[in-house]
């Protein structure tokens, strides 16, 4: 028994050492190659010096994004027009927009898309509302770093970790037993003697999963909006105060208009993250019990249920939904930079 235990421990240590050694090799090798390339290219002089430097500096980045983003995006669009089922299938044919028609007419997928839209409507608005509320409240406060850190902390937690954390909130135990889930405990203390099994009861479960996302994103909204509020010149606030604006009036007539751009950028940024939500739904109940969303079903179509083309169509729909948001953000950023 003891020897078996030791053997296992040593094999674990061995495996860990091998893995980490591989990492050191890889990083070391990468840097060594860079050093050699820089050394060799550094000997070039004259007319060729600049073109060589450009190629060395820009080449890797361009190569990697071409290989990793541009070509795959085109391939996925192409795939979405075919009838490919499993990965590596060769005898595929173009079937036009059938996969898209399917996505919007198949009842299950329709539900998935509708649910994603619901996520998109609720999560960004709620996260920004909480973030804005806290940012406004602490804007006039001295010792705010502790509560701010408490709200910001979930930003560092993975969606999977968050799902685990919240599983202790949403845990279900028969009402006659002592409760282990915080939510059940609270509602039972409040007098609801027979709460449902939260995570498998639709549509409650979808909203409860949204809460996790809001919990993660509120800190981001708070920090960015807080910085924008702080950037409003003191004179503006002071003169508004002299004019009699206080509290909510000040907030509505001065602070909100002055941070409107930031507000919209935060909203769209959270929207983009929400559109791609995958981990939470995947971890909590794998999209079952009427909780599926676009990014989760897409993953299942591609890698689990062998419907590559249908999954690709969903990926393209995701892309088309994200694109206007990103371009709006870019335009906003450029405008803001020009005014500075």
């Amino acid at each position, binding site marked *: 028994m003891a020897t078996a235990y030791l053997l296992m421990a040593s094999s674990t240590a061995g495996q860990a050492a091998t893995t980490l050694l591989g990492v050191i090799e890889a990083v070391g090798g990468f840097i060594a190659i860079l050093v050699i390339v820089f050394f060799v290219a550094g000997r070039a002089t004259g007319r060729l010096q600049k073109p060589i430097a450009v190629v060395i500096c820009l080449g890797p980045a361009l190569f990697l994004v071409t290989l990793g983003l541009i070509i795959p995006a085109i391939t996925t669009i192409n795939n979405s027009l075919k009838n490919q089922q499993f990965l590596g299938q060769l005898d595929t044919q173009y079937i036009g927009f059938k996969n898209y028609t399917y996505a919007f007419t198949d009842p299950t997928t329709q539900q998935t898309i509708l649910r994603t839209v619901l996520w998109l409507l609720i999560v960004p608005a709620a996260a920004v509302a909480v973030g804005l509320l*806290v940012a406004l409240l602490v804007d006039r406060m001295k010792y705010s770093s502790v509560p701010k850190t408490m709200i910001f902390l979930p930003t560092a*937690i993975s969606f999977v970790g968050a799902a685990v954390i919240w599983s202790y909130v949403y845990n279900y135990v028969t009402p006659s037993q002592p409760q282990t889930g915080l939510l059940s405990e609270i509602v039972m203390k409040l007098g609801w003697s027979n709460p449902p099994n939260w995570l498998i009861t639709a549509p409650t479960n979808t909203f409860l999963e949204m809460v996790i996302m809001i919990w993660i994103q509120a800190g981001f909204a708070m920090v960015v909006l807080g910085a924008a509020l702080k950037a409003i010149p003191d004179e503006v606030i002071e003169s508004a105060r002299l004019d009699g604006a206080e509290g909510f009036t000040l907030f509505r007539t001065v602070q909100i208009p002055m941070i409107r751009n930031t507000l919209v950028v935060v909203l769209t940024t959270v929207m983009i993250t929400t559109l791609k939500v995958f981990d939470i739904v995947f971890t909590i109940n794998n999209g079952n019990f009427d909780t599926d969303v676009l990014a989760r079903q897409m993953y299942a179509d591609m890698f689990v249920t062998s419907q590559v083309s249908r999954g690709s169509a969903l990926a393209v729909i995701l892309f088309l939904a994200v694109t206007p948001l990103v371009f709006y953000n870019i335009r906003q950023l450029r405008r803001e930079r020009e005014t500075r």
Partner: protein
Amino acid sequence: MSSTTAPPAVQRPLTGTAAVKAVRKRLSGSLASVLVIAIGVMWTIPTFGLFINSFRSKEDAATTGWWVFFLHPSFSLSGYDQVLTSQGGLIIPLVNSLAITIPATIIPIFVASMAGYSLAWMRFRGSDAIFFALFALQVVPLQMALVPLQQYYVHGLQIAGVTILPSPGVNGTLTQIWLSHTMFSLPLAVFLLHNFIAQLPSSLIEAARVDGASHLRIFRSIVLPLSMPAIASFSIFQFLWVWNDLLVAKTFGGSNPDMQPVTARMQSLVGSYGAHQELLAPAGFLTIVIPLIVFLSLQRYFVRGLLAGSVKG
């Protein structure tokens, strides 16, 4: 400017509406504090519950809620012991997470800062267009790249049946996870680092050029050291992003447990209903503790990067 920071202009006692206003102001100030602290506590309780549960024995955690701990304190490290030492425990996934995260953070730093430097300081025709195109690639959700990229790792790049690039021969290794993370990070990384590098004082770089330093030398000895603040911001971003990622790891790590990072391992723990429920709390806490430490110790840089990436540009 709050009531607490402004020095009182009037020393004599307030009367009438002025007094009402002052009282209301003071009250709303403390009401705000209470509200903020309440939200802060609400935001912390779920994590706190996990933390408490991770130190309770298997039986206690399975039969009673974590809040019972305060009435009947019980303390046990058996959960951590089991998670860290048993077969299928978290040691290897934790090592894998490190093994995935470190190269996937370091490699993009170099690739992106080199690209950012060349786009900012080696002006050539089309450099602006390339910068904009790289930035605009943020629209491509990585979900779009999963299947084609996986096919590339296995079969090489083929267009109409003709192999253009052979497979890199990294299928089934961590290398393909590093490569994928690097590719997906570049649009944001180049954008962030370019903006910082472009704002370095031009006199510095001109002077080095006059002294006969080559572009590559300037990058190595001036740009790279001076860009450390931006590199720090990006590194924390990338570290958290890669450590917390599930989708890329699941897609390119496959089901091979030897390559699973903690997120993938946790996901299968949650999924295997009831089989290892008791390990969930200690395992969950171990999963989040490293990013939390990184985050708390380097929060300043993280916030700076966040602001540069999402509002300021």
